[in-house]
């Protein structure tokens, strides 16, 4: 039987159509899966790059190393002092610093300051007036200034004693007082120190503001410094304004190291309620202790010069008045200014009275 050519052609068309449909169907299902191949190949390549960059790294070891370095985690515990790091390494650094250099060097700083002052006193003795006292008094410090000075001075001494008790008490006072005895003293010390600190800071801020005008450096201060304030020669009296260059340095040390260093670090330690971290408080503690000891050491020099070291100085801060001769020798520039009327005896306070000018004050 011969099939007609038309029939053959129709059969072929049907086959072609069937296969085309199958290819389209299979293709529409398989081709989208190609995305997976792409991702898989990409991932494998990335993994290979990764491993060739860091051969032999154990991810678990890295993980525990991060923990050892202070990595933080999550904790459901909540409390005032509850932390979320497994290990805090700063503590050991703080311990080594505080129990090491801070505790071991600072006593020598204080001892060296005292020894230097004692040696100076033994060798050179107190500085006395070159001329005869005139008996005429000049106002050196006003009542307000004296109040301010003694306010900070007394608080400073209390803070120094209580602060040093905290730093050296365990080594020095425990053998003397015993553990329970020293604990009572330490409790009192820390309480006084914590409450007096901010009051002291207020005093220091007022002092810096009030005494700033006459504590700026002038050209004659160079002469004073070059001659070391005339400390080592009997009748050497380099020029000075209301305060001499040495007093100005003391002023600026207090305004910088004292106020910014010691007082601010003290506030950080005093107010843990603001939630500062242990790391901040460790740093603040080391700064506070070491700078405060330097402050105390320099204060020894200040106290010596105000009392034993310079005859006639102490009454300037106790009674407010000094002898005209003292003023002439130790603060020559200011003396001239007051005498010529350029400066009042109380600089910075306009309109103060001439009653305190030399010659017009009542004899002492």
């Amino acid at each position: 039987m011969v099939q007609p050519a038309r029939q053959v052609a129709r059969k072929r068309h049907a086959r072609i159509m069937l296969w085309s449909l199958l290819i389209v169907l299979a293709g529409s299902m398989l081709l989208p899966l190609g995305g997976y191949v792409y991702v898989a190949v990409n991932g494998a390549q990335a993994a290979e790059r990764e491993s060739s960059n860091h051969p032999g790294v154990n991810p678990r070891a890295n993980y525990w190393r991060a923990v050892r370095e202070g990595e933080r985690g999550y904790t459901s515990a909540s409390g005032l002092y509850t932390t979320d790091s497994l290990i805090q390494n700063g503590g050991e650094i703080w311990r080594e610093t505080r129990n090491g250099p801070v505790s071991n060097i600072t006593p020598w700083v204080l001892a060296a300051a005292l020894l230097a002052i004692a040696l100076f006193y033994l060798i050179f003795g107190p500085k006395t007036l070159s001329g005869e006292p005139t008996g005429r008094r000049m106002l050196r410090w006003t009542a307000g200034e004296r109040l301010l000075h003694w306010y900070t001075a007394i608080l400073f001494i209390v803070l120094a004693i209580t602060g040093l008790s905290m730093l050296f008490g365990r080594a020095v006072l425990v053998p003397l007082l015993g553990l329970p005895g020293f604990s009572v003293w330490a409790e009192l010390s820390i309480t006084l120190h914590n409450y007096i600190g901010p009051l002291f800071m207020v005093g220091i801020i007022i002092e810096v503001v009030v005494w700033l005008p006459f504590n700026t450096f002038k050209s004659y201060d160079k002469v004073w410094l070059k001659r070391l304030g005339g400390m080592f020669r009997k009748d050497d009296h380099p020029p000075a304004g209301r305060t001499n260059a040495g007093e100005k340095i003391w002023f600026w040390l207090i305004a910088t190291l004292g106020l910014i260093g010691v007082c601010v670090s003290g506030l950080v330690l005093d107010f843990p309620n603001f939630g500062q971290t242990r790391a901040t408080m460790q740093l603040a503690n080391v700064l506070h202790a070491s700078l405060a000891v330097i402050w105390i050491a320099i204060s020894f020099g200040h106290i010596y010069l105000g009392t034993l070291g310079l005859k006639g100085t102490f009454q300037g801060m106790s009674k407010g008045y000094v002898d005209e001769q003292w003023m002439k020798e130790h603060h020559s520039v200011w003396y001239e200014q007051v005498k010529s009327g350029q400066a009042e005896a109380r600089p910075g306070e306009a309109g103060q009275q001439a009653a305190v000018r030399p010659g017009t004050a009542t004899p002492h």
Partner: protein
Amino acid sequence: MARMKFLCDAERCIECNGCVVACKNENEVPWGINRRRVITLEDGLPGEKSISVACMHCTDAPCAAVCPVDCFYTTADGIVLHDKDLCIGCGYCFYACPFGAPQYPQREAFGVRGKMDKCTFCAGGPLPDNSDAEYEKYGANRIAQGKLPLCAEMCSTKALLAGDGDVVADIYRQRILKRGGRPKTWGWETAYPEGEA
């Protein structure tokens, strides 16, 4: 004499906080003070690990080294305790401690913290063993009763181990042999440095 140590097996801890609850209950720990806490690393991610942390009773305890009133002492069992009658609440032990163990009842202006409180390994304090005064200040004294800390006793997966360091290390060693992998005696190199008991 035993050298008491804690060990938390990070492969076993499931962050159930059972140890925390046991501690708080046994020692009547005041609100806001956590003698023990569970810290979870990579929380919610693959490879998450939890560890229960308290005072590790260090060999060379940093808290004791920095205490200005020297109120810490180490018992014959190697447990680090402190005397709350001497403590002045200065916070130095909290600065120094690697594990964040020291806790205080308050945090107020002018450095007010109150007496420090921390894990005692359930060994009370310097007052007469198991007296009311001791319980009030330091919590339970299970050690004096021949028992181990309740946190570890209560641990449901036995992740937290407490007791003689040698025995604890042995148990942990057997686990490692069985399950393979590297040992991770977390915190031990910090608390118990090599060569020192």
